[in-house]
């Protein structure tokens, strides 16, 4: 048996190895068990957010749009082969507690349908109010091409949450990033040629886009 007070080096290494092996096996087993459930939970969550910010659709294509301020993950909603809207996930680190990730839904005219925070760990009772309708609903129908996506304090058209300007700024910035990505994807056509997101345009831009599939 093992001498507890004066173990040999071999004994020490063996014990640690066995402990580590058994523990890793346990962790791996639980990982295998929960992997599918976690994936399912995450997929459900994403579906819920997507359905909040997009019109009715029957399938989505995904692609990553590279912009100056990081990658934007884009879901192109389609119904009967027609593109009906874009949901773009963008994030930045400027929230009060760092990461803020927002899913912004646009219609074909580049008008915002709705927004949904996918990662928001702000202070409860302050920044966390960004998930409440009072703040969120002002983005519904917001036209970034005509109005400015900035809080009023910074000369924009967004009402900040009282006492939580930092969160409001971060959230608004994420929405602006989404709009920038959309503009890049559509080749700036939304401004001048409202509604005409012709497929020619899209194809022309496809080369710049790293398709995710």
């Amino acid at each position: 048996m093992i001498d507890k007070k004066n173990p040999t080096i071999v004994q020490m290494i063996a014990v640690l190895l066995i402990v580590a092996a058994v523990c890793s096996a346990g962790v791996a087993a639980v990982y295998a068990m929960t992997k599918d459930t976690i994936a399912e939970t995450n997929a459900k969550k994403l579906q819920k957010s997507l359905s909040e910010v997009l019109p009715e659709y029957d399938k989505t294509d995904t692609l990553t749009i590279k912009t100056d301020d990081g990658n934007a993950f884009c879901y192109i909603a389609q119904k009967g082969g027609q593109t009906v809207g874009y949901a773009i996930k963008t994030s930045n680190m400027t929230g009060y507690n760092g990461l803020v990730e927002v899913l912004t839904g646009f219609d074909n005219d580049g008008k915002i349908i709705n927004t949904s925070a996918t990662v928001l760990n702000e202070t409860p009772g302050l920044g966390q109010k960004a998930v409440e309708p009072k703040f969120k609903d002002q983005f519904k129908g917001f036209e970034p091409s005509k109005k400015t996506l900035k809080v009023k304090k910074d000369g924009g058209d967004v009402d900040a949450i009282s006492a939580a300007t930092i969160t409001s700024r971060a959230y608004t910035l994420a929405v602006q990033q989404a709009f920038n990505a959309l503009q890049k994807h559509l080749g700036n056509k939304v401004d001048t040629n409202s509604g005409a997101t012709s497929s020619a345009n899209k194809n022309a831009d496809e080369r710049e886009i790293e398709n995710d599939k």
Partner: protein
Amino acid sequence: MDYVIIIISSIFVNNVVLAKFLGICPFMGVSNKVNTALGMSGAVAFVMVIATLVTFYIQKLLVSLGIDFMQTIAFILVIASLVQMVELVLKKVSPSLYQALGIFLPLITTNCTVLGVAIEVAGKATYRPAEAAVYALSNAIGYGLALTIFAGLREQLELSEVPEGMRGVPIAFITAGILAMAFMGFAGLA
């Protein structure tokens, strides 16, 4: 990412102790004297920067192997071994500091600042190694700042009259609360 923003926000705005509540145990334990507080901060800074850099690459390795669910286990083992190394080095280089930090040096392992910052950095996919190091260092400075200020306050506190029930830990927490309020004033900087 702008280094200045990282530095200012992690030292003042999102201070690791007073806003993120990491490393409170040693914050209460070693903050009786300014000297001890400084020593502890130095040790934490050293361990934190190395640990964050090492775990930064380990995270990349874990992700590439597809086993990033092992993150917590891998990180804590790296940090635990690093702390042992620091302990050995300190014992040789500065025995007096080693004496002063006593029991708290091994406890850096269970100081959530180090693991917390390592996990935070691992979660920031866009960070480059230099940014990770700056982030770790400025968090360590923020930690040292809070610890040292608090130690100074507590040295004064020992001389003042406090109602019996509030003596010791309770009044220390109240003081920390007021200090946290003061640090909230920095929020405007970000």
